[in-house]
Each structure stands twice: as structure tokens, then as C-alpha cells.
């Protein structure tokens, strides 16, 4: 049974593409067959984050318009053999996406036997974001612990509950998960930043993961290696925990507190 997961947020720049890439890799690493699709037509960056930007021959719009087959457009990841990327078009705009076209592509991916289809949504609530969420079974709503991100996510949660196929057909609705990213425990402790509980209270949902703010994320984008593949990073471990929880595992939340520095670290400024 293929599951379609949309990664969305409302607000831009909170970590949707970073999350899509890492979650896709996390699932593939556990042996699942995963396709990750970039819905940000005209402003594509999933291919950059995945490190396959120089291998994009055909894109999502090409497939919808019948210029090529799905197989020709899907890019196989070099590191994880069960992971495939469908890049967005850079030259077209979002009007090239149609609900029927998107449905056809998704149905074909389901027929191909993919376990998970991740839809990397663009920011906003317009056509691209709408189509990315429309056919979803589950949603990962990426939120920064910051007022405008929380407000926009509230809006997106409202849209997920009303303007999706599952909502319209009364099929139990889209299963919603919150993923808190760019969390800084030090700033939370000093009262500058919203805590996990603050976000949960306003949005009325539990979080599926808390990803700490980390310089490794920038390094990951620059090198085209999704951060989850960097074993040394706390962000990577947090993403891996989130993937586990998506699959139903019960894992305790980590990285909610400032790491305690050991004696020698404090002595020698390590």
C-alpha cells in the first residue's frame, strides 16, 4: 500500500526541502522504495539538496505533458538504490501543473510499486502547495518555533483538513504530523524562542520530531548530501528519529536541552 506524504509548511524557508530530502533518505535507508517529487515549479531546489542537479534531463512537467515517460524522468539516487527523485521544471511555472496530470503521475508511481511518495511542497497556499497536498495520505507540517511560521502552519493545517481529496471524500482526512525544525534549546531556555509546548498548545498537535538548529544543514545543502546521511550531526539523528516515528516506532525526544559540556570541554574550550 503506497503512502503519499506531503511535506508542507505555509511559511517559506523553514526546512521543507531539507526535510523532504532527509526523510526520503531515512525511509530508503530502511529498505523502503521511495520517490520524492519537487512541486516547486520554477524555483526547484530538491535536486540541489539531493545532489543530483546535474543529472536532471526530464522533469515533473515533462512527464505531465507527455514529453517523456516517468521512468525517463526519475533520477536514481547514487547512494541509496531504492530512492528516486523527480525534479521540478525550472523554466515553466506552476500553471503547468494540473490536478489530472499530478494524479496520473502519482498513480503511475503507485503502479510502479513505490512504498512512499514524498511531495515536497513549495511555500505558500497557491496552486503548487495545493496540488502537493491534494492527494496526500499524510502530512508532515514543518514549523519553526517562531510566530509567523506557527501562524502559517495553522493556516496550512486548516487547508489540509478541508481542501484535500481525503477531506472532501470524508476518507478520514489527511493524517497530520508536526515537525519542529531549527530548534535552539538555549534560546528557548532564555525565553527568546517558543518551546515545543508553546507550539503544541497553539497548533493543538503533537510533534513527530524536533530538529535542532545546526550548521550541518547548510553544509549539507552546499555539498548535495542530505543531512540525515551525516552520522556526526544532531540534526541527522533527530531526522532519523522522526522517520522512525513516522513508521510507528516509539522513540523519546532528543535534543530538547542544551548539551551539557564535559569538564575538559569547559576547561579547554572544546
Amino acid at each position, binding site marked *: 500500500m503506497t503512502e503519499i506524504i506531503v511535506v508542507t509548511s505555509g511559511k517559506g524557508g523553514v526546512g521543507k526541502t531539507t526535510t523532504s530530502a532527509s526523510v526520503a533518505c531515512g525511509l530508503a535507508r530502511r529498505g523502503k522504495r521511495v520517490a520524492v517529487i519537487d512541486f516547486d515549479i520554477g524555483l526547484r531546489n530538491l535536486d540541489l539538496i539531493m545532489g543530483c542537479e546535474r543529472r536532471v534531463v526530464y522533469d515533473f512537467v515533462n512527464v505531465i505533458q507527455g514529453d517523456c515517460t516517468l521512468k525517463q524522468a526519475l533520477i536514481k539516487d547514487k547512494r541509496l538504490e531504492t530512492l528516486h527523485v523527480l525534479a521540478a521544471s525550472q523554466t515553466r511555472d506552476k500553471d503547468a501543473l494540473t490536478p489530472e496530470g499530478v494524479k496520473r503521475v502519482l498513480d503511475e508511481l503507485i503502479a510502479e510499486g513505490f512504498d512512499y511518495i514524498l511531495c515536497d511542497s513549495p511555500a505558500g497556499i497557491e496552486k503548487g502547495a495545493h496540488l502537493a497536498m491534494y492527494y496526500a495520505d499524510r502530512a508532515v507540517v514543518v514549523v519553526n518555533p517562531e510566530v509567523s511560521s506557527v501562524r*502559517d502552519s*495553522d493556516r496550512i493545517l*486548516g487547508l489540509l*483538513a*478541508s481542501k484535500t481529496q481525503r477531506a472532501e471524500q470524508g476518507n478520514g482526512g489527511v493524517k497530520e504530523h508536526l515537525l519542529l525544525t531549527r530548534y535552539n534549546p538555549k534560546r528557548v531556555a532564555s525565553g527568546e524562542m517558543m518551546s515545543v509546548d508553546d507550539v503544541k*498548545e497553539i497548533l*493543538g498537535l503533537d510533534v513527530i520530531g524536533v530538529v535542532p538548529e545546526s550548521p550541518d544543514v547548510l553544509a549539507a545543502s552546499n555539498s548535495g548530501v542530505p543531512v540525515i546521511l551525516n552520522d556526526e550531526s544532531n540534526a541527522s539523528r533527530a531526522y532519523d528519529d522522526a522517520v522512525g516515528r513516522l513508521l510507528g516506532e516509539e522513540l523519546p525526544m532528543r535534543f530538547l536541552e542544551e548539551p551539557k559540556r564535559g569538564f575538559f570541554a569547559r576547561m579547554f574550550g572544546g
Partner: protein
Amino acid sequence: MMSKPVDAAAPAPAIEIRFGQVGLIQVRVRSTDPGAILDELTGKVASAPLFFQRTGVCLDLTLLGRDPQLEEMRAVMDAVRRAGMLPVGLVGGSAAVESLSAALELPVLAPFRPQTQPVPVVQAAERVESGIPALMQQQPVRSGQRVYARSRDLVVTATVGAGAEAIADGSVHVYGSLRGRALAGARGETSARVFCQEFRAELVSIAGVFRVFETLPPELAGRPVQAWLDGDDLRFAPLGS
């Protein structure tokens, strides 16, 4: 050439006379039986003590169909006071009322213009309740969403998010956090109220009279609160106080 000397330190007058308008509850008396009046009005006051307790009421005798005796009227007024309301006038219309008013030392007030909606006391009991249950909203009302209960109350058993709107022709009840806008009495019902469990509203309106909350008053913020219309004034009070 003589100029009148100006009195440099004229004392301020003890009183100022101004004309104002007040909303007044009208109690239409059908029977002068003090026991019955006491029972019914006590019940009314108990149903909404904040609204009715020690509120000024005007007594309208036209439904009696006759001119009551002075002693009857004293008993009626006594019953009204014991129920918790304060008679402050008689609705005028006849010579009998004029003489009663002089004896009872109450002003004669002009006959009421019928309001668009009936006033809560006594008349409310006569109005047939339609019995349609409230519109139930179990899901949070998210930012940008609007929920509207036509011709009935709205009950939300979740949060009304910032930037969301909860609207009803009747009352709005939020068993959760009210962070957005609540608009009760959307088609003019002035007796509609807004209730919430956690008050953080951006705007509250009843029958078009609204208040925006740029800051939340500390006595209301985060607490269970009800809002109601007192004439033209929108009033707020913590629930259960």
C-alpha cells in the same frame, strides 16, 4: 465705560445635567400576584445573575387590562426587589399610571418602542424556543477559516486560532482557547453572548457592537470569560466570578 468685574474664582457647579440614553429592561406585568412574580423573576435572575442582579427595570402594566390598586403595586414592587431587580420607572400611558407613579415615587417613562429582538425578561419565556441544537464544531478552527452557525448557537470544542472567525446568529461557546474573532448575534440578536474557556480574543462582537483587543486586559487574559451586550456597551467578565 464700565465693565463688569469678572469673578475670577467662580465655583464649579455641584451638578451637571446631560441627556443620555440607557437600555432598560421592561417587565410586563400580567398578574399582580406577588408570589408568582417573585418566583418567576428569581428564576430569571438566577439564570444570569451578572446580567439581572440589581438591574434597573421598568414596569409595564398594560397587560393587566385594568388599573391596579396602590397597595397591589407596592406588593409587586416589593416582589421585584426581593427577586433582585430594582424598579426604576413605570411605563406611561394612562392617568392611573400617572397617579400611581406619584404615590410610588417612580418616574413615568415613555412607552417602549418595540425592539427588533424581544428583551430577555418575561418575554423571553414566551418566545418559543425552536429547539434546534447548536452547530457543533469539534475540530480546531484554523487561521483563515470561518465557521458560521445560522439561526442557532455555535459550540466549538477546540481552539479558535488566531486569524480564525467563529460566527453565530445565536451565542458562541468556545470550550477551548479563543485566539481569533468571535461574533455572536450576527443578525442582530442582542441577547446573544460569547463564552470561552481561555480568553485571548483578537475581536469580540455581539449584534454588531465590537471591541478589538490590541492588548488583553489582565483580569481577562487566559481565563474563562463571557461577553454580553448591556444596552450599547459590550461587557466582559470572568466566568464564575
